[in-house]
């Protein structure tokens, strides 16, 4: 590891320790800690797993078993914006597959993940909870309903900073 990397890593560790210590609710666990870290820095780097283990008096194995189980956790840095597209059965009936297909094209990807410019992360969501407004998508957890393949692609392109 180069000196620059080590320095960056220790800065990240410090930031994670602050997040872990700032948890306000009475019950603090491995899961609550991982959620707090991801809410703050949007992914779980190795440093987060290690610091959470130390903070909770747990092992790296135990923390990793929790982190790998819940599908909201991610382990690499996401794009600047996260775009969730619902693929649950309710949105499925009103056109979620076509929305996903057109978002793939707009982001130039074929599955979940980052657009090549690193600006947008696409996530398939099992249910965003606004089924009455389906098909639903969300930008950084803010929901937008009644999507069409065209409207969703336009939003995806705008998130990449491309004019529609």
């Amino acid at each position, binding site marked *: 590891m180069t000196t620059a990397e080590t320095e960056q890593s220790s800065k990240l560790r410090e930031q994670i320790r602050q997040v872990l210590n700032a948890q306000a609710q009475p019950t603090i666990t491995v899961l609550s800690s991982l959620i707090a870290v991801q809410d703050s820095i949007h992914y779980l780097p190795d440093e987060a797993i290690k610091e959470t283990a130390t903070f909770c008096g747990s092992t790296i194995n135990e923390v990793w078993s929790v982190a790998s189980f819940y599908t909201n956790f991610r382990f690499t840095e996401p794009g600047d914006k996260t775009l969730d597209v619902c693929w649950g059965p309710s949105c499925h009936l009103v056109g979620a597959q076509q929305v996903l297909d057109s978002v793939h094209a707009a982001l130039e990807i074929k599955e979940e993940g980052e657009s090549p410019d690193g600006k947008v992360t696409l996530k398939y969501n099992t249910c*965003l909870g606004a*089924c*009455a407004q389906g098909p639903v998508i969300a930008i950084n957890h*803010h*929901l937008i309903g009644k999507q069409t393949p065209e409207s969703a692609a336009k939003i995806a392109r705008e998130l990449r900073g491309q004019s529609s």
Partner: protein
Amino acid sequence: MSTPFEDLQARAAKRWSELTEGESAWIRVGGGTSGQAAGADAVFEAFKSSVESTGVNANVSMVSAMGLMYLEPQVDILMPNGARVYYGNVNADEAKEIVEQHLKEGKPLTDRAYAYSGGDGSGVGNLPELDSMPMVALQKRIATRNFGDTDPHDLLQYVANGGYTALNRALTEMTPEEIVDEVKAAGLRGRGGAAFPAGVKWSFLAPSKAPVKYVLCNCEEGDPGAFNDKGIIENDPHTLVEGLIINGYATRSTHGYVFIRTGHELPIESARKAIAAAYEAGLLGKNILGTDFSFDMEVSLTGDSYVAGEETALMEAIEGKRSTPRFKPPFPAAAGLWQKPTNINNVKTLSYVPEIVRNGSDWFKSIGTETTSGTAIVCLSGHITYPGMYEVPMGMTIREVLEKVGGGVSVGERIKVLQAGGPLNGLLGEDAFDTMIDFDAMSAAGASIGSGGIIVGNETVNVVDLLRSLVAFNQFESCGKCFPCRLGNTHMLEILDRMCQNKAKSADLALLERVGTSMKAGSLCGHGQLGFNPIASALKYFGDEIKSCLAGEIAPGGVFGDGTMILPTRTRP
């Protein structure tokens, strides 16, 4: 001398009269997750700035959603004379005109509004009364009684509408045993899906003399098509908080947890604010309302995992572990969260409790059917004209809900298929539409009220494609602890996938049934045990379609012409 609760009520009455009886009009914008998805935030901001720039005398609040989601964003205006006019599908650009015409000129835009209530009926043109609209008139709102009326973040508005009187009565006039008996006598059955009598469940926990006991409220609600648990928490969180405190008192418990999935920002924020406000008002913490009962409550967040909604998996998640189900026994009432005696109830179940304590068990028992008292909170989505969240008395038929409340099919010619009660429950065909909504009648029809979600499909829906979507969800969400569930769902998904692509083999139906039987026998929790339900019920109502699909006689399913479907590639290690 007045009691602490009387003081609270006096402050609440003052707050409510300022909002509803003063010289100011009150503009209420319906919020909630669905409202947000429809654009309510921008509409709210537009009304605030229009009121400011026009200089009219009006309060603007973001309130709870009414449940009429097809009308969102929805705005209503209460005039100082008591007349309330409701506008639906409001665009932010219209705010200024509505404010100017309605508030400044005193002329409601009757061609833009959809209903009115209150007042003397003058100046509202031909608008219908809100209560005369079938999707309102057919409802019996108990758990959702405040929807559309109050600001969920204002405890005083809840108290002004009768809130916390049940808790006050419970703590000052009733023993814990009397409350358990009242809940039993009301015939309240658990709304989480299992329909177990809530009072009986409470009576398992109540006698334990353990110094620490937990009551948990389950709002995992990962079911596609269901949004009533999150709906109650985000729209009227105090009804749940009050219900959970009463649950705690009745079972002599010390701590309550409200369990929600991370990422659902509105319900989480709403629950957190409500709990903080309840502490501040002396409704939580030490010596609640001056009595010797003390009780603490907090929100516990889970990561994305559908199985976390299973009661023992839920306890694993609160403890911060992987949310996989535990072996039973021991049952939660003996050894639950952190091995302490524990009760778990669904949001809806708890949200009925304040009204049951306030109005008595006879009143609740008089609503609904013989075996299922009370209401069902149904969420309509898919190909339905009026999607939304409606609280209807148990005993209404599915057809009445679809046609009278939901307005029938939205696109296409007829409703062909329903997915009711969450992805582990059945599909229903037209033959079942006269089934009464009631736990036992629905179960006999091969479905379940379950989560309360009803996803509606028209005649264009390919049943095998819908099954694939449900099984894909179940496969993605299997926690992986029991291999019959983990591999069984994967195997069923493969078979359904090739059926959709017209590549089925003749033995595939028998194979599906064999896999389904193994899952039922070899899985620890409902996720595996019920995994074959959608297919079993589809065979009952759509057997011919499935058989012609197996024989390659119908066009491929899916939307891309070749029968393929886009699916997530992530798995749980």
